[in-house]
């Protein structure tokens, strides 16, 4: 089943809020906010997020793929997962 971009954003946002800014409303987190620059993801959190995106996309995430363009914002993460699913035929 193909998840829409909006669904993916909601899913990832819930994961991030639950894991790293517990107590916040998920809607408070702008999908285009740079989470690394904003201090929401530290280096250990990035590992967690990469693991999560791996499980969402069904394909391993390599270290060199982790950068502000792929992981900086929730929107970017959703695009990354969608591209992975498409490439891997998972979607």
């Amino acid at each position: 089943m193909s998840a829409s971009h909006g669904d993916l954003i909601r899913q990832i946002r819930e994961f991030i809020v639950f894991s790293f800014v517990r107590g916040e409303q998920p809607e408070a987190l702008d999908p285009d906010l740079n989470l690394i620059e904003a201090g929401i993801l530290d280096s250990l959190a990035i590992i967690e997020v990469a693991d999560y995106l791996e499980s969402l996309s069904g394909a391993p995430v390599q270290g060199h793929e982790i950068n502000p363009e792929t992981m900086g914002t929730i929107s970017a993460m959703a695009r990354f997962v969608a591209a992975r699913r498409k490439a891997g035929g998972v979607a």
Partner: protein
Amino acid sequence: MTHRLSDLLGQRAAETPQAVALELEERSVSYGELAAWVAQLAGTLRQSGIGRGDRVGIHAPKGLLAYAGIFATLRAGAAYVPLDPQAPPARTARILDDAAPRALFADRFPETAPAPEGLELIILDGAPPAGDCAGRRVLGWDEALREGLSAPVELPAAGDDPAYVLYTSGSTGQPKGVVHSHRSALAFIDWAVEALTIRPDDRVAGVAGLHFDLSTFDLFATMAAGATLVPLPEGVLWRPREASRWISRQRITTWYSTPSTLVLLLTRGGLAEAAPDALRRVLFAGEVFPIKHLRRLREAIPPETALFNLYGPTETNVCTWHPVSALPGEGEDLPIGRPCSGDEVLVLDAEGRPVPEGEEGELWVQGPSVMLGYRGAPELTRRVLRQRSGAPEGEESWYTTGDLGRRDGRGDLHFHSRRDHMVKVRGYRVELGEVEVALYSHPDIREAAVVAVPDEDQGVRLRACVVTEEPARCSVLEIKRHLGGLLPSYMLPAEIILLDTLPTTPSGKVDRASLARAEVQEAT
């Protein structure tokens, strides 16, 4: 006899020009090539009048530009200032203002960080950007090499010249610049190469960031031994399994990191399954290694791989070492061991008098690997580089570490705890005061206290307890965003707790012990 760090490269280039100095992802660089580039880049710096008494910033990930930039800076007679490429621009700007570099090696044109006054020359990885560069000369790599071709560089042999400035957390909010000389760096490097028997066939992993003092071993001990430096590619530590496999695939013989990084490879990276068979030695420093995980490490690596516990604040380089021959038993701690790098280490009371064997005191360090001082802060330097009470006239000063410990019956030193509010997070020094200053700079925060909470895998994690102004109560998210703009990642509190008031002790001070205990009642 080597007097300057830059000589290490020149000597090896003359002896074994074909040997591989750097093994980068995209290519290998021989000693001969690296030395030639360094000479040209040093010439470019000299053409601009940059030399002794100057500083040059390095704002790039571990790679050819950064390594060549470091050696070119040293060869030109200046001191290098490594900056954390991941740090927020505001903090980098504060460090640049303090360091006042005349040149900068950078992987990209610094758009966000306002460049300091006096910065004249920027050398970039690729081609320079078109258009306005705010009155500075900007050279690409190729141009910088060409320009320095014809410039002769004379080498002043003054070992007491500053070689590098490392910025560490400062309790007032301003990072402190620890200045080391060629002599103090080489005291450690010469000791390390000999005691740890680093050889030309060693492959040394470059794990630590260049702004972190562990990186001086990676770079300079490798060059001193004529071995090969293999920098861990950016991002790989975010995939711990990949990092473990990298150690095996790259046939790494020498690994030096914080215990936290090793714990990550053990708990999340499947280090044992990756079979790092080539490892000859694993060195760790920066924090206490939890015995439980040390035991796992011993089982994950070949039995003949040597383990070394190294100790030393940034201000002293490594000043004690302990070859781990047997793991400590139940209820014992791992010693930091015996003095090294030509240093002497004493356990003294607050006045600088010896304490009886086995009793706790502060660790004082004296010797050739101790820093010159803090940059531009003579008063702060005088406070930490002190004389012992009743010391003979003219005795060299001692660095008072602020670390409490003891010397046991066998003569081994042990670290206990800190005397002040400095903690180690994943091996990085964090002054809790620096985090508090950042919190207080938010207009809606009335009171703030940051405490370190014990954490099984990470040693400690930071907890910020915050009281906000009524009615403009700001959210946890807002506080995180605020801190994220001011502090590097390792200084960010893992927990932010909003409280109605901060608890106080009977004497009226903030009750940090109660804040650090497991459950703190959050404001509703």
